[in-house]
């Protein structure tokens, strides 16, 4: 694409680095910015600068935060002895939306995959182990993806926690609520049968 201005070209190049945004969408955004009042664009720029320079990560769990401790860790009503291990911020949001979980989180920032250059040392696993030891945590819940890499990561962390005297559990896997058996894939269904649970009256 040819651009009438170096300034536009620069803005388009930067915007098109976003996931899911190509050159054409970036161009639309740039034109939109130029059509609006000047202060709208400046407000956006300042928001981005503030976001990048002032964002903090909770020193305890790695969640994003406005101060050194995130809202969840600072909340006395939450069970501080219960840690849910998740991959990233999106998982925290998803679990928070269930309103079922009253403990705290630990964000490890990825899944172990040597093929993609991700080893345990590049993830926040050491800080989790330290935290469990220092805080005398009761239970660690693994809420990681049901993929090969997710399995490996759960496996690895549980090995590391073996001697820490903490209960380690993983979220259950199986038939989706409201799902019909005939549409479940064979692997999920097979495993659901093999790992069936005792029926409980709730």
């Amino acid at each position: 694409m040819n651009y009438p201005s170096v300034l536009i070209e620069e803005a388009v190049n930067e915007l098109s680095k976003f996931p899911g945004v190509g050159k054409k969408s970036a161009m639309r955004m740039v034109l939109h910015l130029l059509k609006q009042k000047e202060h709208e664009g400046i407000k956006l720029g300042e928001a981005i600068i503030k976001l990048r320079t002032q964002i903090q990560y909770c020193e305890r769990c790695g969640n994003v935060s406005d101060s050194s401790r995130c809202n969840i860790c600072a909340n006395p009503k939450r069970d501080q002895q219960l840690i849910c291990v998740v991959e990233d911020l999106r998982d925290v949001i998803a679990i928070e939306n269930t309103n079922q979980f009253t403990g705290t989180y630990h964000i490890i920032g990825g899944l172990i995959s040597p093929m993609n250059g991700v080893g345990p040392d590049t993830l926040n696993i050491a800080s989790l182990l330290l935290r469990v030891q220092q805080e005398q945590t009761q239970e660690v819940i693994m809420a990681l993806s049901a993929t090969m890499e997710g399995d490996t990561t759960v496996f690895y962390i549980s090995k590391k926690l073996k001697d820490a005297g903490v209960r380690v559990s993983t979220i259950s896997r199986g038939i989706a609520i409201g799902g019909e058996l005939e549409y479940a894939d064979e692997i999920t269904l097979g495993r659901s049968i093999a790992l069936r649970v005792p029926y409980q009256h709730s």
Partner: protein
Amino acid sequence: MFHLQSLRLHYFKNYQVAQLNLCPEVNCFVGNNGAGKTNILDAIYYFAFTKSYFGNNDAQQIKQGESDYFFIEVQVEKGSVTENVSIAYKVGAKKTVKINNNEHQKLGDHIGLYPLVMIAPNDILLIIEGSEERRKFIDGFIAQCDKAYLFNLLAYNRILDQRNKLLKKCAELGNTDHTLLQTYNEQLVQYGTSIYQTRKQFTSQFVPVFQEYYQLISGGSESVFIDYLSDLTAQPYTDLLAQQQATDLAAMRTTKGTHKDDWVFYIKGQLLKKMGSQGQQKSFIIALKLAQYSYLKQQTGLAPLLLLDDIFEKLDEQRLQTLLSMIAHHDFGQIFITDTHIQRLQAVFETMPQVAVKFFNVQLGTISDI
């Protein structure tokens, strides 16, 4: 029972457009070498497995220089229902497989729905090539009737890749993460042991079927045997990995496991690869494929499609007669045959009037009924 009613191709291999109405029993494609007979069989193979029999990548399946997509559409009659299966591939886009316009979420779901056995001249590679060819054949075979096996296989390969990458990294850094290595070991053991057990059980069920077909094809009493070789036979995989740890770290890859399994073919107690005559090797292959046919039929309850590529050229009179008498006895479901000589084929089928047969004339990218 199921059979293909019609086949439509767009820009597949050397066909721009082709539309065939098929016979439920025997379909013969006759034409010169290079006319595109085998491409028809490959299209049918692609319909069943969503890949080429010859291991070509998808872009190579497109008619060169005329299009950036190909399309295969098949009408299948399964009992009293008709299913419309369409497969489309476009360069740079995802391959789509639809049954009655419903797209499969995973291509793996499609494999095994329409069982198929193909016999082609280059099957001899199964005997003369390395163990990878035989693993590919057996794995594809088992996966057609066992979804859990396919899943275990994919999981094993994934863990294996990760473990090998880790071994390489350990060597580069000069520092081994033993906990992570142990994690991969346990995952490999879990999937590998399951693969080993399935292969072992499969082999013990399959060999007697195979031996029966070999006797039938060769008409003789030569003893044949297929032996399943695995590192896991001697000791449990856990011990094996522990024992190989130093070797693996030095070699920077996993040196033992089910990814090294092999099947060894014997004739009269000797290696078929070395001691078998050409005729014996051919009989072995045909028996292997016919046993596969019978095994699949028993497991899936469907008579698989049988694709015979250039079989009259490659088989001698006696083996051919055995195969033909099986066709005459309706031992198979729908059959697809290619040959260069129309007279030869017509003469063969004149002797079996009880078998419905249709001939197609194939000439450089066009097909017509005869």
